[in-house]
């Protein structure tokens, strides 16, 4: 009886991980179908009008596009099972290689942004919720609205201007100094630049890359923090009205602890879920941030291949994004289960 709660957490995590498999399968199917429903195909998009019908048919056959949709679907799934996401049409670069070379930069960008957003959003939201309708609350709410409503590139440019005023030598573009980038081939252990320089023990390169991270992460983080501030605030207010909060006060638990242990922890449950959903927003935000800061991330690659109408590349990169979202949802659910003992299968 008593062990039913503690014993089921590992079980919950195991079941949740197993569920990833059907989830990914559905996801792959949707991505596959979406791109087949779209008019045109990669061959005509790549070859354009310059090729005659026979050559086009030949190329389609070579790419396997003349087969039935179902056969294409099966071979696509088969390839994916072998971690083969196809190659770009023009350059024949494997999609996985693109994801590997550019995904790392996007990953560190989004993680950094999330970290900043949480560091700003959680304490501010809690303060605003606890001191509701005071000038402090009004100020924080204003920040929440403005930071969420402000266009990302505008905030980015403002930050660049500001940083330029304060410290003209601070990097505002790219992920690393060009000289360090020139030797980037030596940093290929994880293909995550920040990690590789750290593992290589190259402190100068590491701090340089870290410095380059600040502005893009801050820009994206501020956008995200607005959502989190408002979300935490409203949930803390809601939780403070909770029956268990009044009961805790009736037991004489000091107000600080009531807010921290009772209201805030319970407020986090819905917040965690929504933060997970924000990952999708962050991904699209990353595309914008990357183009603002010349960030060599996967978002810029996606833009490039959409422009070139390279369906295979787009399909592969979108799959990568989707997989990240699925994995985040697993992480979110596990965190939720750790926080809330009622979340069990």
């Amino acid at each position: 009886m008593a062990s039913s709660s503690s014993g089921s957490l590992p079980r919950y995590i195991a079941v949740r991980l197993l569920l990833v498999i059907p989830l990914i399968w559905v996801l792959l199917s949707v991505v596959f179908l979406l791109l087949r429903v779209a008019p045109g195909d990669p061959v005509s998009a790549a070859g354009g009008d310059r090729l005659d019908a026979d050559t086009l048919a030949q190329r389609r056959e070579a790419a396997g596009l003349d087969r039935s949709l179902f056969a294409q679907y099966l071979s696509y799934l088969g390839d994916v099972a072998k971690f083969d996401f196809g190659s770009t049409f023009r350059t024949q670069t494997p999609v996985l290689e693109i994801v590997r070379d550019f995904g790392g930069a996007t990953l560190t960008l989004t993680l950094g942004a999330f970290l900043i957003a949480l560091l700003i959003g959680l304490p501010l939201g809690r303060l605003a919720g606890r001191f509701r309708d005071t000038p402090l609350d009004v100020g924080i709410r204003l920040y929440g609205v403005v930071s969420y409503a402000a266009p990302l590139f505008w905030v980015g440019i403002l930050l660049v201007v500001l940083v330029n005023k304060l410290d003209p030598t601070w990097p505002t573009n790219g992920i690393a100094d060009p000289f360090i980038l020139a030797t980037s081939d030596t940093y290929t252990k994880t293909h995550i630049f920040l990690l590789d320089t750290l593992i290589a023990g190259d402190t100068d390169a590491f701090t340089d890359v870290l410095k380059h991270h600040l502005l893009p992460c801050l820009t994206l983080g501020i956008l995200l923090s607005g959502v989190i501030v408002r979300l935490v605030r409203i949930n803390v207010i809601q939780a403070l009205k909770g029956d268990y909060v009044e009961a805790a006060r009736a037991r004489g638990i000091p107000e600080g602890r009531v807010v921290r242990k009772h209201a805030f922890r319970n407020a986090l449950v819905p917040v965690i879920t929504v933060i997970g959903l924000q990952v999708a927003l962050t991904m699209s935000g990353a595309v914008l941030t990357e183009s603002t800061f010349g960030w060599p991330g996967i978002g810029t690659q996606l833009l490039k291949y959409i422009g070139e109408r390279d369906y295979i590349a787009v399909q592969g990169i979108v799959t990568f994004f989707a997989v990240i979202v699925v994995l985040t949802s697993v992480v979110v659910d596990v965190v939720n289960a750790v926080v809330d003992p009622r979340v069990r299968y």
Partner: protein
Amino acid sequence: MSFDLVEGGGPARTASGPVIEADDLRVWYAGPTGPVKAVDGVTFSLRPGEILGLVGESGCGKSTLGRGLLGLLPDGAARDGALRFRGDDMLTLRRKEQYQLRGSQLGMIFQEPLTRLNPLMRISDHFSETLKTHEKGLSKREIEERSLEALRVMGIPPTRFKAYPHEFSGGMRQRLMIALALVLRPAFVVADEPTTALDVLVEAQIIRILHDLRETYETSLLLITHNLGIVAEACDRVAVMYAGKIVEIGPAREVFANPQHSYTRELLRSTISLSTTGLNFIDGAPPDLSDPPSGCHFHPRCPDAMAVCATRDPVDRELPAGTRVACWASDLRHGTVTLSESERAPLQKEEIALADEA
């Protein structure tokens, strides 16, 4: 108060004074149309080990009074009058001192046990948090011993100590709440409709537990309830509240046998038993507490209302049987007041006039 209102109800403890004393206590809070006088001049006292039942319709200020005694007030609420705990005035205490008193000396048991425990905290954490807050320097072992003892008294097996609230039934959760309220042995406990959300068998069990508290811990209890049967069964005295005021207070037996206030009488007539053939109810609803009727607040609904009831506030009077009542009709019956012919005339009510038109 020098006057002893109890006749042999609780255990005789003449040496010790009252645990809690409210004298003209008021709890008002801000409403959309001016102050809501939820508790408006309430006077009573409780001796150690005594159980006072507080009855009345919903919206009469019972819960506000219960919470007000502990200082658990909604935003924008204020207390006035006098409220003494073992002789010390509680209204002048600083916030921190109020928090210290709460839990350790003043306990509260709530209506909805299902939502009163933090769903993210183990039962053991609830106990250790409460104990650590009030008794600094307790060792882990002492905390566990004290908690398990409180659980044992409530009939909850020690194997469930580490469980989460959602793993318990409603009745068990209410027993957990009681254990949590009593682990610090408070001298005074407010139980706000502790059995309303529970089934009948569990209700009987909880009432028995509360009733036995005075033997185990000498706890004084204010038992807020809708259920007059519970009052008859468990309480030494009963206070009847209407529109923010205590209209009648006295030994439970006496009040039930000889209700003096018209409201008490109507309330008792509304109870249902096996011999009930028709439902009795009191016309209308309790008044808006931000704008209560003049005179006796009950006069618009009172079957015995006289002209005087609508114009002059009734005065608290103590009767030989130990009851204190504020009712003109009662005064007239006991000859404690002389009223003129016009004051005694039955009150013409607006509702009746409206009914005639229709």
